[in-house]
């Protein structure tokens, strides 16, 4: 029996060996780090996935119904991520481990784990924010009908996200990309008894699938041109500025991949799913739809940054113009929509879209560090705001700000942490958002000066965006925490399991920005820059504050806060406060979200689902199948026709024209007597004919 298994074992062993060979790395990676910590970093990915399965199958039997497994696994990621984070900050880590899982043609398919600055930052974010959100969710989801299932899906998400950010190649990235998509689908549709939630989940999945199709195409173009799925191979070509297939298709590959990023990072006009995704439970909105999952697009642009930065001018540099325009439009247009929302989660959702626009615009401006820095800080303060909103919703049992008001005194912890989050978001010194947003604006301005003409326009949009952000946040704070309470439930401060994570996140919302203060401490830049030699590639990183931009933006933000307070804060208790500044034309436009949803529904979804699909089915049943059945019917018809010819025409001729023809008809009919003997006779006639033929020829 040992012999039996040998060749199968060979297969497995061969895989393992190839894996270890591959793990020794590729040419472009400088200074591979080795050691226990990085070699076992795959645990970061695997532990949450395993936890997800364990929770799904055994969660209900555990004392805390699976929460302990979920929290344990994410805490593991958090701790491991933090250790790596500090290690990276002090020593710098570059490691890539791969396991070959198949060869197809000349392409190798590998699973792997990347441990470099960019990935470590994401591990840290997912782990730390995830840990706090999971802790929060324990209280928030208490008593939920599918408590265990929720944590299973949530762990699946964490696993998927880690698969995504640890990916050393495009295939694994796509795997993670869609895994987070499907867990997002599961969690948005968590309360699937209500079709509204199911439809929101479907919408999220479908919009993402559209962009995923583009990502597929982009990844395929890139992989086929380079001959490998590996990011290293792609970046190797880019860094060396080799002209070849990749440079030939660079624009299309870059554009397609960017469209993929647009879907996941909810960029205009593919942003429509994210506000609807707020149908999911609030912890989901905080972790997935604000802090981590939606930033995957930015992450992807960061991962392929040299390709887009395009120093050699051979690659996707042209796409960057599109990227910056999309980012600029997104940050501006969706920010405006946030002003008219009543649902507090939707305000935050549109705010998230708008902030993602900043990050994308930064990537488009060629500011790698700035974009990712904003990703980093935003994760903390937006998660904080969402959890704060969740705390409010938990208290008043409504998502609508028109049911809140005056909660300042009843929920002090929520109030103060929310204020911290708001200040971080709008970018007030010294909160986190101040540094990252400023860096983005400075970078955009730099790009404008550096020949990217459209960036100047985007800078204006960015500044207006900062104003808009401050305005809607002032409105949200005023409507929820000030004035009179307008709801019916009895609000009270949330339990400790929900309050502590708020405090924890508030801490990061204040301090996260301090890791990258121009002129003071710019560690963050170095942490991210360890993998690809960006500094040599012209990545713009501000050495000091861009004072004009800083001053203008701060002034705008403060003005907006004041205006917002003046408009909404003064008599926030009136029911109609939220409609205080109805501007004709613009207001309906915003309330209807620029009619983009309607356009998609009536322009694409309904026609395809309705008339188009029905037409195809009709064609199938009537034309394609009809031809077949028609042939069948035709054969029957011929048979019937012969019969009627026989009985009518032939007999008629018999009567009319005489015996000769009639005899023929009779003989013809006699040939169908049903007598076996006659058939035998006929067959022998055939035999004779054949024999004669054989003899003659």
């Amino acid at each position, binding site marked *: 029996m040992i012999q039996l298994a040998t*060749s199968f074992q*060979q297969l497995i062993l061969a895989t393992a060996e190839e894996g270890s060979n591959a793990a020794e790395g590729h040419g472009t990676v400088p200074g591979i780090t080795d050691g226990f910590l990085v070699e076992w970093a795959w645990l970061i990915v695997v532990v949450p996935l395993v936890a997800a399965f364990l929770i799904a199958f055994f969660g209900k039997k555990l004392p805390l119904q699976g929460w302990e497994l979920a929290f344990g696994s994410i805490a593991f990621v958090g701790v491991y991520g933090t250790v790596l984070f500090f290690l990276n900050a002090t020593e710098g880590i570059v490691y890539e481990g791969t396991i070959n899982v198949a060869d197809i043609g000349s392409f190798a398919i590998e699973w792997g784990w990347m441990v470099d600055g960019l990935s470590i930052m994401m591990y840290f974010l997912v782990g730390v924010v995830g840990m706090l959100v999971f802790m929060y969710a324990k209280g928030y989801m208490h008593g939920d009908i599918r408590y265990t299932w929720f944590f299973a899906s949530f762990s699946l998400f964490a696993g998927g996200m880690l698969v995504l950010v640890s990916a050393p190649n495009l295939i694994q990235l796509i795997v993670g990309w869609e895994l987070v998509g499907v867990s997002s689908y599961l969690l948005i549709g968590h309360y*699937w*008894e209500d079709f509204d939630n199911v439809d929101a989940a479907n919408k999220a999945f*479908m919009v993402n699938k559209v962009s995923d199709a583009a990502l597929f195409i982009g990844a395929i173009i890139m992989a086929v041109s380079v001959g490998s799925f590996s990011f290293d191979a792609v970046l190797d070509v880019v860094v060396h500025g080799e002209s070849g297939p990749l440079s030939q298709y660079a624009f299309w590959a870059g554009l397609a991949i960017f469209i993929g990023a647009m879907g996941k990072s909810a960029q205009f006009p593919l942003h429509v799913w994210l506000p609807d995704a707020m149908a999911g439970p609030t912890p989901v909105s905080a972790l997935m739809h604000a802090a981590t999952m939606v930033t995957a697009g930015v992450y992807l642009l960061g991962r392929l940054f040299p390709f887009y930065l395009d120093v050699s001018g051979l690659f996707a540099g042209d796409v960057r113009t599109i990227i910056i325009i999309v980012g600029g439009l997104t940050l501006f247009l969706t920010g405006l929509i946030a002003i008219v929302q009543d649902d507090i989660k939707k305000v935050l959702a549109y705010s998230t879209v708008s902030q993602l626009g900043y990050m994308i615009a930064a990537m488009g401006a060629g500011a790698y560090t700035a974009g990712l820095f904003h990703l980093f800080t935003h994760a903390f303060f937006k998660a904080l705001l969402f959890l704060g909103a969740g705390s409010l919703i938990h208290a008043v049992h409504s998502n609508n700000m028109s049911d809140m008001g005056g909660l300042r005194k009843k929920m002090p912890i929520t109030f103060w942490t929310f204020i911290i989050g708001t200040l971080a978001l709008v970018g007030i010194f010294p909160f986190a958002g101040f540094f990252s947003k400023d860096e983005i604006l400075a970078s955009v301005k730099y790009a404008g000066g550096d020949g990217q003409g459209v960036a100047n326009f985007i800078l204006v949009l960015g500044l207006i965006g900062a104003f808009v952000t401050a305005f809607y946040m002032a409105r949200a704070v005023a409507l929820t925490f000030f004035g009179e309470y307008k709801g019916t439930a009895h609000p009270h401060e949330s339990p400790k399991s929900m309050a502590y994570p708020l405090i924890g996140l508030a801490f990061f919302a204040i301090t996260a920005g301090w890791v990258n203060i121009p002129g003071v401490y710019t560690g963050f830049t170095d942490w991210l820059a360890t993998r690809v030699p960006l500094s040599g590639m012209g990545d713009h990183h501000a050495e000091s504050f861009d004072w004009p931009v800083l001053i203008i933006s701060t002034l705008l933000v403060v003005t907006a806060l004041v205006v917002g307070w003046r408009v909404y804060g003064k008599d926030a208790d009136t029911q109609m406060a939220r409609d205080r500044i109805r501007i004709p034309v613009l207001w309906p436009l915003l309330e209807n979200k620029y009619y983009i949803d309607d356009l998609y529904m009536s322009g694409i979804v309904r026609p395809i689902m309705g008339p188009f699909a029905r037409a195809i089915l009709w064609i199938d049943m009537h034309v394609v199948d009809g031809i*077949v059945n028609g042939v069948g019917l035709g054969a029957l018809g011929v048979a019937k026709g012969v019969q009627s010819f026989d009985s009518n025409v032939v007999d008629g001729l018999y009567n009319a024209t005489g015996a000769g023809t009639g005899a023929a008809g009779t003989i013809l009919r006699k040939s169908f007597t049903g007598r076996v003997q006659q058939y035998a006779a006929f067959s022998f006639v055939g035999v004779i004919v054949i024999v004669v033929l054989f003899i003659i020829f």
Partner: protein
Amino acid sequence: MEWFENGLGLSLIVFLPAVGAGVTLAIPRARESMIKWTALIFSLVTLGLATLLAIRFDYSAADSHQFGTKIDTPWIEAINAHFHIAVDGISLPMVVLSTFITVLVIIYSWNHWPEPHNPKLLLAFVLILATGMTGTFVALDLVLFFLFFELVLLPMYFMIGMWGDRGIREVPVVNWKIEMRLYASLKFFVFTLAGSAFMLLGFLALYFRSADTLGYRSFSMIELSDIGAAGAFTGTFAFLVFFGLFLGFAVKVPMWPLHTWLPDAHTAAPTIGSVILAAVLLKLGTYGFIRIALPILPAEAKNWAWFIGLLAVIGIIYGSLACLAQTDVKRLIAYSSVGHMGFVMLGIATLTDVGINAAIIGMVAHGLITGLLFFIAGSMAHRFHTRDMNRLGGVMVLMPKMGLLLGFAAMASLGLPALAGFWGEFMALMAAFNPLDSLNADGLFRTFMVVGAIGTVLTAGYMLYMLRNVNFGEPNEEWIGKEFEDVDRSEWLAWAPLVIGTIAIGIFPKIVFGATNDAVIGLVERAFGG
């Protein structure tokens, strides 16, 4: 193990089920459990042998034919037909898949008998089908191939005709009203038979023409491939032969517009019939393309590639759109097969190693996933007595486990990465970006790639549409207060291996690629010069 290597083992895998069918038929009808156990044991032994085959297979020489009978085993000397069977990397996964599905089908039918109740005959048919399916995948002689190819026809015909849906089907255009099972079984039979008649003509033409090059007439696929690669068949002759083969295989696949038998056959067939049909029978056609049409007529395959690719992408879009208009769950899944097989054919049409590898893993994945979908749809129809999606709904409330499995299967079917279905779709698209160089059809195939990518979106669309209507929401009022048994034991036993297989292949695609890759590269090199 000498006996196993020299062809006896493979012969056992092929013919043991047929023997099992005979034994099953010999057992009195009343002794039902004995019948079931007999069938199960025969199928399990076959699966065991197939597993042994997979273990003993020399993966480092996947391109060579292994475990074969000797080529000089004459069978019908008069026409130089040989009994020659063997496996290589391409057929190995298919052999394992078909033996595997047979076992699962028998397990599932343990307590799910379609009416009229006749386990004996049904199981005998399943076992005969197993012989036909594995036989087709291992045959290396065209006559033998044809024999096995046709062998699956009759059991399936009877299966649909006897145990099929007795509802009335109104056929538009010709205004027939006819019992579903009769219509479907007849259509299945006529379509397939008509296709294979052309295929047989093609085989015969090859047989007679082979004498020009070889000096004697041959049905051997290996010999024909050798002379085919050397350019023995060209011109109008090759065109007509390829056309014949194309018709035979394309009907079985089925490719648009020869697909219309499929929705009817799938919908009307009893659950296990649909499963076998979807999981294995459709692959006979695609396998035929890979094993026979491409290697023997490589030059003609290049001429036809754009046409096959075009029909494939039409099938992808068309099948998906037809799904969106369905209200019948089984019909929806049936049309989804048209789309999925479109991806498989797109892969084949590129004539590249990546594309054909994609096609094979697509075949395996489709077998597992669509098999699972049909199992679940059948079980739901069994419980609800309807397949109408407007009446279903809230299955997650009534039967959470069933709903979860349906969700899993739907996700796998729409090509979720890290599940088996992804590889076939993605790699087919990848191959379409870079088809065989000598085709000079990059632009066209890249258009196909984009259309195919849109097809993946539509696929997601109809799968979510199905999940929304079947799984989610509150259950329809007519079901409230009724007890529904969630997934029972035989269902678990039959479905869990499919779920595990889907995940395993998704995470570790080497299970399939490890066998196929070398063989496919060899095939492409020989036929198209790399």
